[in-house]
């Protein structure tokens, strides 16, 4: 039997936090280069929450957000979710494409650009993680939904519903300037991946 969420000790949780730190650090650097802006990130948080609390982590279940979702496969499996609120996605796209648009709605090309941002973030997050652990992992193509945060987060959470009643999310928030762009990046490893991940780093 593999390690379950309840078995994790504080040292192991610290290691998962560090994974978030390294992965998100690389992702934020990539984003920062892309838009030529300084972007700060907060210390990653490892959240172990009950299903009904998940949506509260992201500003409430009805908050309108863009969610870019990836499946992770390879030695470890899980999901990556990149959430960004709607004003932020407009600002981000304006920087990227040199626009000055105020309409919150994104057109086809802009949506595709937003997906690509997610793609680069997820790719750099995982490649640094892969270098660190020596495990091979790949991300799926990005899939984008603009909708209520609760509805979007239900997708990775349902995967957890098959094994338990809690979900573990490694969350990193990042912020540019005076809160112009705010996003959350979640790495959500499947429960059977905890052990592989921790073993590869010599913690168990």
């Amino acid at each position, binding site marked *: 039997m593999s390690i379950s969420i309840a078995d994790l000790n504080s040292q192991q949780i610290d290691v998962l936090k560090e994974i978030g730190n390294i992965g998100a650090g690389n992702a934020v650097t990539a984003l920062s280069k892309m838009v030529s802006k300084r972007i700060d990130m907060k210390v990653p948080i490892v959240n172990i929450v009950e299903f009904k609390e998940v*949506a509260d982590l992201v500003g409430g279940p009805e908050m309108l957000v863009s969610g870019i979702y990836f499946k992770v496969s390879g030695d470890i499996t899980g999901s990556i979710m990149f959430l960004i609120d709607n004003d932020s996605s407009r600002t981000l796209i304006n920087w990227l494409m040199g626009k000055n648009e105020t309409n919150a709605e994104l057109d086809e090309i802009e949506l595709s650009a937003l997906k690509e941002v997610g793609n680069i973030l997820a790719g750099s997050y995982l490649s640094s993680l892969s270098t660190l652990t020596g495990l091979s992992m790949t991300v799926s193509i990005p899939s984008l*939904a603009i*909708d209520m*945060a609760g*509805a*979007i987060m239900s997708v990775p959470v349902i995967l957890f*519903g*098959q094994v338990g009643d809690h979900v573990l999310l490694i969350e990193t928030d990042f912020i540019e300037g005076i809160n112009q762009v705010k996003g959350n990046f979640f790495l959500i490893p499947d429960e059977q991946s905890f052990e592989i991940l921790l073993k590869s780093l010599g913690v168990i």
Partner: protein
Amino acid sequence: MAEVIKVGMADLNCVYPPDALITLGLGSCVGICLHDRETKISGMVHIMLPYSHQIKNNSNLAKFADTGIAKLLDDMLKMGAKRSKVVSKVAGGAQMFNFNDTSDIMRIGARNVVAVKETLKNLNIPILAEDTGGSYGRTIEFSSDTGLLLVKTIGHGIKQI
């Protein structure tokens, strides 16, 4: 004054009239409302997965269509609902993300809806109305007084069923 009682993910609740039940941001999950037309005792369950027997860890009954609906009905009967007067309304079961592969887990919304309908049929509970499928989230609010279900979306309108 009617109170509005919240139902979380993998959660259920029952009320006496005139209270209402609400669940926010339903995605691939399905919200099932049961309503006794005589006493107006009503319940709502927010399920995540189709069947409890397919899963090892199934202690939370409200997580699954089969056990969630059965438990909800049970709770309502304990509160004094009349079994023969119970009807239902169903919403949710969207596919939030489109992937090219059609793996089971990605079609979970549709599978949830099928399991809900099968469970209600087995229990002989008629489905009066439904708003399921699509690719968008829903917030649903059920009034025990009127038996009406309000479905709110972002960009796909508001309707009462």
